[in-house]
């Protein structure tokens, strides 16, 4: 494969595409709302109306507005339809021919869409994720070519460092620094692992990226492999995401066939194989050392760090572990340059972040916004606020994060600001809570989650989460005293300070943050 061949594939695909493309979402959310039948009905209507020469129905990835699915979008007219039923589907096609449609029209200029800045999701909902040609037609795999033929591995690492990209999995570790650490290790067997074990309940952006634009992630992994000197990558995906796994399998096969993955990528001396590893339902496997143990086929037990995986990871070899969204940012950075990427966002948090906006909010779905945007903008403007109520708190970061009270809604969304509030950016879950939500119940919900998901290896986490859960239950049953509350405070600090891995260290966060901002709710339950 040469660059000219790659460009030819793209050109051929663009020529084949019809003037009008009817995009129908076929991701998990819309499929649950019967989008496959909608797509079929529209395809039949295209034939029935004799429009096959200029109209084409394309099954695409997620467009983000999952709460209003199935979503249908017409390009280039930019018409949007929401909650399309199979009965309405043919009329959408007839409307292209001068007819009328009964389908519910959406507003593409709504803040939910207009305020977004799409980098990671730029292809999502625009291309057929099961066709590599569509990805190539949109400029896909050019960054990989560019990196392999015009940059040294050190230059690639340098570019990522300069871009200021930070890990999107939660902790926000500088990606360039991580790459440089693995790259500096002596030459030999090294690995790239893509962490697609999106365990945070309430977060689904990684699923969406994998389902909507799998090649973007594969390309990012290959560039990472070149930069650090690895010839093997593993994509660890949750078994709960069967559609993502299916599409990744297709994508890897297509990439191999075109010589974009496998041996001698783009005719260079660089080999890169990618294998999928399917999880089996364990939240702790999102922690990097536990994930490594799971890729090796064992129980997902974490181990103490150091040594860090960058020094001794998979089978004792230097291993780079990056989150799905982080890797999906790589190709655009190489394509458009580190300076372009660094111009987006805030001083310390560059680029964009995808959030899954859910809970008691009008507009449910995925949004990609530049770092530094305020929570209020996201929740009230883009999300449309709480239907028939008001925002009480926003939970970010899932079981490792915290609840941000409505009074702090003007906080800009970046790693440091959220940490200052006692929460974390996390992987991007954002659950909106309204006046009816009991914050103690939310804390109990998360503790129940952690209690069930602790791997049991270290005592503070194994026993501490159970004790904290019991204390919270006691409070909720109005049987607690002030002594219990004091003990809960102490337990939180102890588990946080002494647990082995991130799961235990962050498990008390939802309790701590609700104690900080909503202590009166605890006190009310105790005094009555």
């Amino acid at each position, binding site marked *: 494969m040469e660059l000219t061949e790659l460009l030819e594939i793209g050109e051929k695909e663009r020529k084949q595409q019809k003037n009008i493309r009817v995009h129908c979402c076929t991701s998990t959310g819309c499929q649950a709302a019967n989008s496959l039948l909608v797509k079929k009905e529209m395809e039949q209507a295209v034939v029935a109306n004799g429009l096959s020469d200029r109209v084409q129905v394309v099954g695409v990835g997620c467009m983000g507005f999952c*709460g209003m*699915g199935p979503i249908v979008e017409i390009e280039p007219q930019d018409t949007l339809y929401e909650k399309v039923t199979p009965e309405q589907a043919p009329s959408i096609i007839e409307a292209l021919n001068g007819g009328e449609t009964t389908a519910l029209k959406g507003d593409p200029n709504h803040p939910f869409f207009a305020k977004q800045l799409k980098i990671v999701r730029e292809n999502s909902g625009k291309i057929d994720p099961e066709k590599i040609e569509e990805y190539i037609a949109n400029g896909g795999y050019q960054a990989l070519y560019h990196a392999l033929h015009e940059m040294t591995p050190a230059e690639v690492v340098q570019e990522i460092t300069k871009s200021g990209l930070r890990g999107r999995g939660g902790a926000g570790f500088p990606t360039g620094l991580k790459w440089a650490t693995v790259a500096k290790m002596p030459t030999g067997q090294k690995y790239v692992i893509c962490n697609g074990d999106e*365990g945070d309940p309430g*977060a689904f952006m990684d699923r969406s990226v994998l389902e909507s634009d799998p090649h973007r992630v594969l390309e990012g992994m290959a560039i990472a492999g070149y930069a650090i000197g690895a010839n093997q990558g593993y994509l660890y995906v949750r078994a709960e995401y069967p559609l993502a796994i299916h599409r990744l399998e297709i994508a890897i096969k297509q990439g191999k066939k075109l010589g974009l993955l496998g041996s001698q990528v783009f005719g260079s001396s660089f080999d890169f194989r990618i294998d999928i590893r399917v999880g089996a339902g364990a939240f702790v496997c999102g922690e990097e050392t536990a994930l490594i143990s799971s890729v090796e*086929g*064992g129980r997902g037990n974490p181990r103490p760090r150091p040594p860090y995986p960058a020094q001794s990871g998979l089978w004792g070899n230097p291993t780079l572990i990056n989150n799905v969204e982080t890797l999906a940012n790589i190709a655009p950075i190489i394509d458009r340059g580190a300076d372009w990427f660094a111009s987006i966002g805030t001083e310390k948090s560059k680029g964009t972040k995808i959030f899954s906006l859910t809970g008691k909010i009008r507009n449910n779905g995925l949004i990609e916004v530049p770092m530094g945007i305020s929570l209020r903008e996201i929740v009230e403007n883009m999300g449309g606020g709480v239907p028939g109520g008001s925002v009480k708190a926003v939970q970010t970061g899932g079981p490792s994060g915290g609840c941000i009270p409505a009074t702090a809604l003007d906080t800009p969304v970046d790693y440091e600001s959220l940490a200052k509030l006692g929460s974390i950016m996390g992987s991007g879950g954002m659950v909106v809570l309204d006046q009816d939500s009991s914050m103690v119940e939310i804390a109990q*919900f998360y503790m129940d989650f952690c209690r069930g998901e602790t791997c049991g290896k270290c005592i503070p986490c194994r026993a501490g989460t159970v004790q904290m859960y019991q204390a919270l239950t006691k409070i909720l049953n109005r049987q607690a005293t002030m002594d219990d509350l004091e003990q809960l405070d102490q337990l939180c600090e102890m588990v946080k300070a002494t647990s082995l891995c991130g799961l235990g260290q962050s498990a008390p966060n939802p309790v701590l943050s609700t104690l900080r901002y909503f202590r009166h709710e605890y006190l009310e339950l105790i005094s009555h």
Partner: protein
Amino acid sequence: MDSTSVKVKGKATGVTATAHPSGDKRFKVLDVTMKRHRYQQDALIEILHKAQELFGYLEDDLLLYVAHSLKLPQSKVYGVATFYHLFSLKPKGVHTCVVCTGTACYVKGAQTLLATVEKFANIHAGETTPDNQLSLTTARCIGACGIAPAVVFDGKVASQVTPEAACDRIKDWIS
């Protein structure tokens, strides 16, 4: 004539070397999967997934067979099978109903939904009805938060499910 007999012989020895004494054909499919993974021990989770897909659940005999084939200690295979939530060591019902209890679903009333279904089917989450028709389980999060509360009926995700709709759905299965 000669070549045929050699072929048959070759095939026969191949089978006796790995085949399960029960002669159950599903073991053959499992063998193919293990062979594709070159009997690598680190493919244990993939192989257990396949085994569960074929047999419905992981019974002791099946775990022993996998341990033997991959030359792994039985304790290791049992340890992995019990560590992960998706592996089931008990048989499942004909139909499955998985209620998502992730945060978004929780906020939108998944607890009430689950309680209603539990009462309706007269079983708790994690149990199977006595007639073996329905298994009711919960999931930590299936990543369908935009359409919460979500329930998976026989592998198909349903969106914005009300307690009534869920009971309606399983009604035919358990009556």
